[in-house]
């Protein structure tokens, strides 16, 4: 038997990504290092003028020399449209690329790291996505995985974080998952039931709040110091701004990781012509004072998630056992202090917040059999690798994942009519909801697209199954005969609206 399980777990983050796999010898999940022997890989892609791609640290370093070819935070564009309803594309040197392709570059790099460690080809991955992702965003993530020749299984990031901490309790437990990453802030209330069911019962957060904002605040602080010392505003100098952002991230990480050193130097050599070195000291106290407003925003969102959990699932703060910290920015000492002070709950941070989501994904991945090959074509079927039996034996084998519906789903009719089926933040298998509905024949939809939380791993998430369509509409299955592509193309409109 190979040392590693060949189905890997990937935390495909906005700013950093992590890959992990289950190690049979150590009987635990191991985070797989990248080419630089680091556990986290920047989710950054660089395309040089000849079209050659590089990913990770080498791409990130190009920000100083050739920022035009550097692509950051592509996750924000996945499955998104602009106000005119046109798909958002990535633009590099006046050329457009599908965000799925850029995301696939990152996945391909992580896959390559895993294959190097495992010593065999990898065809399958459990990939995490934020709990608030719409179907179009999840679908784009699936497409990116397929382009990178990986068979994807998606799970929500907070669910993965809860799984990483284990499910061995016999009692119902609820946790607050506080995920303060590089590009986004998400908070989820996760309930783990005694029958090994993980359920996300409430969500909150801010898609435009992350470690990058903290870096920017620190950069502004630096320019303020520069102006005070040299009497000029250098904040419009793009080259210096790029250098300052990189230094700001470094200073932030050092302040948060090094418990001994309470003061860090913010140093930039030759910031502008005539100045040999700019060096300013910043203490942890001053740093935390600068970012206090941001931290306060995150605490407000924790309350939003708790309110939604209470409203929809009667889960209250009293039910919460602990707060799980996820994401690099959650390592800021003030985060744990203020969370504990505000909500009076113990903080779980014994697993590295940078790696916890990938660890949870890899634990989930252990329950999947590796496939023989990646499936890129629509009509291909996943086939287990030769000689591979179900893994079994793990304590997660019967894990049943239920997630909230992040957006209201419903049946859309032509003529701008809309019939909601399932409300946002209600935890349910949407397909089941649809199955139970018999629409009056006068309002029967012309087209329907049902979102099915499929139990079977081969089942597509978006189904045009005649059985489901007919059940939802109260019509004969004969009304929905036709090829899958015809049904899909004619079908229409399960609207997702916030």
């Amino acid at each position, binding site marked *: 038997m190979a040392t590693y399980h060949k189905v890997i777990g990937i935390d495909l983050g906005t700013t950093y990504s992590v890959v992990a796999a289950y190690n049979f010898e150590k009987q635990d999940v191991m985070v797989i290092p990248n080419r630089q022997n680091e556990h986290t890989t920047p989710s950054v892609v660089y*395309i040089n003028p*000849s*079209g*050659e*791609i590089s990913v990770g640290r080498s791409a990130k370093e190009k920000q100083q020399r050739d920022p035009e070819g550097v692509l950051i935070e592509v996750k924000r564009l996945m*499955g998104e*449209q602009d106000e*005119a309803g*046109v*798909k958002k*594309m990535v633009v590099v*040197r006046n*050329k*457009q*690329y*599908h965000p*799925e*392709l850029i995301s*696939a*570059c990152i996945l391909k790099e992580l896959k390559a790291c895993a294959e190097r460690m495992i010593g065999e080809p990898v065809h399958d991955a459990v990939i995490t996505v934020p709990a608030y992702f*719409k*179907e*179009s965003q999840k*679908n*784009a993530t699936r*497409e990116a995985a*397929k*382009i*990178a*020749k990986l068979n994807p299984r998606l799970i929500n990031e907070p669910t993965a974080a809860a799984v990483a901490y284990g499910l061995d309790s016999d009692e119902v437990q609820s946790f607050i998952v506080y995920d303060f990453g590089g590009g986004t802030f998400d908070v989820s209330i996760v309930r783990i039931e005694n029958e090994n069911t993980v359920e996300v019962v409430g969500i909150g957060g801010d898609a435009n709040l992350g470690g990058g904002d903290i870096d920017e605040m620190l950069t502004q602080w630096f320019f303020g110091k520069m102006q005070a010392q040299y009497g000029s505003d250098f904040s419009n100098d793009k080259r210096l701004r790029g250098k300052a952002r990189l230094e700001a991230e470094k200073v932030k990480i050092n302040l948060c990781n090094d418990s001994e050193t309470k003061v860090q130097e913010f140093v930039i050599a030759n910031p502008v012509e005539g100045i040999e070195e700019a060096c300013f000291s910043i203490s942890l106290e001053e740093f935390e004072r600068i970012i206090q407003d941001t931290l306060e925003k995150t605490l407000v969102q924790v309350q939003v998630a708790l309110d939604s959990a209470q409203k929809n699932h009667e889960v209250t703060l009293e039910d919460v056992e602990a707060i799980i910290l996820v994401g690099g920015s959650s390592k800021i000492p003030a985060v744990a202090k203020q969370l504990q002070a505000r909500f009076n709950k113990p903080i779980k941070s014994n697993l590295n917040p940078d790696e916890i989501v990938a660890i949870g994904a890899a634990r989930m991945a252990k329950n999947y059999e590796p496939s023989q090959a990646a499936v*890129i*074509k*629509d009509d291909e079927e996943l086939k287990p690798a030769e000689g591979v039996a179900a893994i079994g034996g793990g304590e997660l084998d019967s894990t049943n994942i239920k997630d909230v519906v992040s957006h*209201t789903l419903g049946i*859309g*009719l*032509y*003529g*701008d*009519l*809309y*019939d*909601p089926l399932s409300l946002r933040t209600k935890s349910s298998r949407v397909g089941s909801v649809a199955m139970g509905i018999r629409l009056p024949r*006068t*309002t*029967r*939809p*012309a*087209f329907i*697209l049902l979102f099915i939380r499929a139990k079977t791993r081969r089942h597509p998430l*978006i189904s045009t199954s005649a059985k489901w369509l007919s059940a939802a509409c109260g019509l004969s299955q004969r*009304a929905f*005969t036709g090829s899958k592509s015809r049904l899909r193309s*004619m079908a*229409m*409109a399960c*609207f*997702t*609206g*916030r």
Partner: protein
Amino acid sequence: MKHLQTGEVKAIQLDRGLDAIVEKKRMELAEILATGNVGATGGPGAATAPAPPQDNVSALLNRARQLLPNMPQPQRTEVENAIRQLETARSNNNPNEMGAALVNLTMLLM
């Protein structure tokens, strides 16, 4: 959008999945990625901005008109009537009438 259960009319963001990558495009992008090179100016990985989505009603009417010549006579008459019904509903700007007309035409085309 008009909420059928409450009658409330409000703006919501629609997502019909029209921008999803199709199998052919996926295969093409997978090949590009395998080479590690997305191409220089105008390369195969690059794309032009997609055209704005076509109005759904117009799309359905166009499709119906395209199919008309190959339809048997009884069905053709039904479809022609449904087209007229839909055009009238659209010109009257009545969402309920239009919804019914769209359902009718769509079912005839299935």
